[in-house]
């Protein structure tokens, strides 16, 4: 039992599950007290000890199924120790052919019954582009590496057949039949393992590692280059981040809200203790909440960044006195109503489909600013933070930065978020230099980490 469990733990660690030694000890202790032959019990013991959060659960399920069901050693062979020896010696004789190639070595280990190496390979593979591990293990796309590993499996298969044929004198045909069946089983299992890690590649990006890690990786991906599944994952990540941020805000606010000594209340309570002020009360200050007005360029590339910002802002609505949002391409449209009526994500989808705006028009900052000033200038006041999100590319029309300056005059501060990398800001039709002069703050906002930094600074 102990070696089996240790092998599972080694495999689980290789695949990115965090298991501590004390947990292994606990688990062994627990296994003594239950009936390990009943699988439901056995599994729940392992699960209770090794998968200690919701997110690890799915990963654990997969590993468990893999280890105890799919990779299981063939029982008929495991029972005859003399064959096990032969297996070892055959694998030994493969050693010169293996050389120093780590992936072949992992496969040979796998044949010998130790899946840790292969699991690590497979999961490094499924880490996806951008994960330092897969880059370190060898360059190249994951598809290419997969093909390579499949080639290795085929090579190994041929070599094994050769070795077995070469030992015709020592081994009886029955033994050879058993051995080749065993190796075939293991190799097929390896192929399945490989195929499986491909199947759930995009999801496993955040499942395989600890969640934080997943966010960090996702956090550095440019908004515009997210795949639809990553957008899904991103929404989940944002929900999580927002929840954590709300926690921090409420703690911060309770601390900050403590105002001056409330003399009246303290004295009133002191009367109960013969005038000794044992309990001291403070006045509570109402938290100062900002009004937010966002002005989003929704043309093409900018929209991908804007939608996540809107998602975050509206998820944090309670932290602001008011959020009003406008979108523009060549003309302004208010979308606050849509957000009021629908849940955040539904609203964002709706805006794309239903808002009365020509998404294909050439972006015209001048006209948009003019329209905004004409209709909505009165909503800007001393409590308002105006956030403009756009790339500042005016298609060589007049940027009308003077209007932006007028708007700046009326509000508390003006922040410009640019989803382009800073080195492109001042090239071509970008009027960032002009706009930058007017703004209180200009930030690049290309990925989740930058967005999060901005939102955190905004609410705290």
């Amino acid at each position, binding site marked *: 039992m102990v070696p089996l469990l240790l092998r599972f733990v080694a495999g689980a660690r290789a695949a990115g599950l965090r298991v501590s030694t004390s947990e292994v000890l606990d688990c062994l202790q627990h296994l003594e007290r239950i009936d390990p032959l009943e699988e439901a*019990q056995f599994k729940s013991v392992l*699960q209770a000890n090794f998968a200690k959060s919701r997110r690890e659960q799915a990963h654990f399920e997969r590993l468990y199924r893999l280890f105890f069901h799919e990779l299981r050693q063939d029982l008929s062979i495991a029972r005859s120790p003399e064959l096990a020896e032969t297996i070892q010696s055959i694998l030994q004789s493969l050693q010169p052919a293996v050389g120093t190639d780590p992936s072949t070595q992992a496969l040979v280990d796998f044949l010998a019954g130790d899946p840790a190496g292969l699991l690590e390979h497979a999961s490094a593979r499924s880490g996806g582009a951008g994960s330092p591990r897969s880059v370190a293990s060898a360059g190249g796309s994951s598809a290419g590496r997969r093909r390579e590993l499949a080639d290795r499996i085929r090579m190994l298969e041929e070599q094994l057949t050769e070795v077995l044929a070469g030992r015709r004198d020592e081994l009886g045909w029955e033994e050879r039949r058993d051995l080749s069946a065993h190796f075939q089983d293991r190799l097929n299992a390896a192929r399945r393992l490989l195929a499986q890690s491909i199947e759930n590649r995009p999801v496993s990006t955040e499942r395989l590692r600890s969640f934080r890690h997943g966010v960090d990786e996702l956090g550095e991906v440019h908004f515009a280059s997210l795949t639809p599944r990553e957008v899904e994952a991103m929404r989940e990540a944002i929900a999580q981040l927002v929840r954590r941020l709300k*926690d921090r805000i409420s703690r911060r606010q309770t601390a900050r809200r403590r105002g001056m000594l409330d003399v009246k209340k303290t004295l009133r309570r002191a009367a109960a203790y013969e005038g000794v002020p044992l309990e001291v009360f403070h006045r509570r200050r109402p938290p100062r909440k900002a009004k937010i007005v966002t002005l989003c360029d929704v043309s093409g590339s900018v929209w991908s960044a804007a939608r996540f910002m809107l998602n975050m802002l509206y998820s944090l609505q309670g932290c602001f006195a008011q959020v009003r949002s406008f979108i523009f391409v060549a003309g302004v449209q208010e979308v606050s109503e849509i957000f009021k009526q629908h849940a955040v994500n539904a609203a964002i989808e709706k805006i794309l489909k239903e808002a009365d705006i020509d998404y294909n028009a050439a972006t015209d900052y001048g006209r948009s600013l003019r329209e905004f000033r004409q209709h909505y200038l009165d909503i800007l006041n001393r409590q308002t933070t105006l956030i403009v999100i756009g790339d500042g590319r005016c298609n060589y029309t007049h940027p009308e930065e003077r209007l932006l300056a007028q708007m700046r005059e009326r509000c508390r501060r003006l922040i410009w978020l640019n989803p382009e990398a800073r080195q492109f800001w001042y090239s071509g039709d970008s009027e960032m230099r002009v706009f930058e002069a007017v703004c209180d703050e200009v930030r690049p906002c290309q990925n989740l980490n930058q967005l999060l930094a901005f939102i955190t600074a905004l609410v705290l």
Partner: protein
Amino acid sequence: METAPQFEDVAHVRAALEGAGYICSPGVATVVFLAQATRKPILVEGPAGVGKTELAKAVARCLNRELIRLQCYEGLDEAKALYEWEYAKQLLYTQMVKEKIGDVVAGARSIAEAVDRIAAQEDAFFSERFIQPRPLLQAISAEHPVVLLIDEVDKSDPEFEAFLLEVLSDFQVSIPELGTRRALHIPFVVLTSNDSRDMSDALKRRCLHLYIDYPDRDLELKIVRLKLPLIGDRLAFQLVDAVRRIRALDLKKKPAISETLDWAQSLVALQVEELSLEVLRETLNVICKHRSDVQLVREKIEKGFSVAPGPLTAES
């Protein structure tokens, strides 16, 4: 002292919990059994309303132990969780024994001596009499084994979590004025969390982890029948199926077992024999607690969402 009931094996746990009105999966029973056998705390996670708190209550019921509950919230501190000195009572006693002070310090030759004499009486004011035990101290100093439920531990601050860690690993508490209190019996500890923030690894490592998910169909049916014996078979089937379908939708708050039970109860109260779309539309507020959720389900109904039993994949 009579011996408190103990769980003998996993099957016994299941039977005992069922006797206490709590039906659980084998996984839950295994973890509960191990927690009792190895005296480790259980950290229960899962969506709201799947019976996390109820589990602790059921365990207390069938082990015949007292349940001590500590509800966590932001800003919960040691004074609220462990113990507090009763200032008011101390003050009152001081007032009443004021005259006695004269006797104590009578004949003192210097102020220093008078202070020493008063200090010698200090114990009278920092004694058991004036301490107000809060849930954690109650659980530790209980005469009989208890079940300690630390509810919604994720709502508490990280500092409190660290403090909890200390208590849970040693089961002893030191009160400066009185000395160290060691637990007479290690309590059966259940921590529940709604996953609103991640618990620290250290805390997780000390606990057995249990994730209670929405139950499968048979289990839910069994629960409904146990809690509402009056419900008709047909209605129970339809009800559970409908809830499972609604759960499959993308809702803000998915209906959990507690909602299923509430709904079942209201249907029984309304004397509904069969679940029709009309009934579903009118009683939707019982299962969906958000306006947008209600709207979503209504829309689905308009589009031909059926409540009749059938393969779950048929809708959407």
